[in-house]
């Protein structure tokens, strides 16, 4: 959890500080282990291409919790309710990626507040890799 601004809800059109990360072969392999998916496309270098980043890594690294400006009060957590993802290009190991987020909608349903956040992942060459729209709801403890 980052030390970003603490909050109990989000405001529409709010933008978050972008997050940049580089994918090393070791980081990619950590996710291949987690996902039990050792397909050669994620591991082997060929004459024409370097190994691909597992899409599961990109999804995990583009969760809003990665933004340096994200933070929640103690006893609160975001829970994933819905997700739309569109892929544009495969991502290559060794590249740096930048994630940007913005709140696109907030609504109430059955006494819970849902927030819809759009994220875009772009590589260091400016190629769009994926866009996702995540709907989350805040879980709160008793304190």
């Amino acid at each position: 959890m980052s030390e970003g601004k603490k909050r109990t809800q989000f405001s529409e059109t709010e933008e978050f500080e972008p997050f940049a990360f580089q994918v090393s072969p070791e980081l990619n392999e950590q996710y291949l282990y987690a996902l039990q998916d050792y397909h050669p496309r994620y591991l082997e270098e060929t004459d024409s291409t370097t190994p691909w980043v597992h899409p599961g890594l990109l999804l995990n690294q583009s969760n809003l919790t990665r933004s340096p400006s994200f933070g929640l009060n103690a006893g609160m957590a975001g829970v994933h309710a819905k997700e739309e993802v569109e892929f544009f290009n495969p991502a290559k190991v060794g590249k740096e990626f930048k994630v940007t987020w913005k709140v696109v909608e907030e609504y109430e349903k059955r006494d819970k507040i849902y927030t819809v956040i759009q994220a875009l992942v772009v590589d260091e060459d400016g190629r769009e890799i994926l866009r996702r729209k995540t709907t989350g709801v805040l879980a709160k403890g008793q304190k």
Partner: protein
Amino acid sequence: MKLSPKTEVGAEFTGKGRTISEARVFAFSGGRLNGPGWPARNIHTDLEFAQSCGLQTRSVSATQYMGYLIELLIDLFGENWLSHGKMDLKFIAVVDVGDRLVPKAVIISKESEGPRTKFSLEIWCEDQRGNKVTIGTAMGLI
């Protein structure tokens, strides 16, 4: 298992089943392996943390089993799916550490789109009790 333009509506596909061990949850949701603060404490890795947020148990990150569905969709459409594919999901049940999930798909429509065939699929992950934990749709071209 790859789709072809001749693949019929109604065809069903089952991907690889996986038991989600604690070590794999930590690898996915614990931050950089052996980095500072590893494993991160969050609702995926730490029962006490999850309960402090009002949750009954830890829950495996939904993005972890989205990865299982992506593997099935790449098997069906080929690697090119990562250049145009879409999926739309709802997460309808908690997945706990130790659960076993299987990704599944069924073709619900197909249509010509220029020289290619566009398929729409219903997709889901099922746990070891046969309960669906995520449901949704995916689209891809062959």
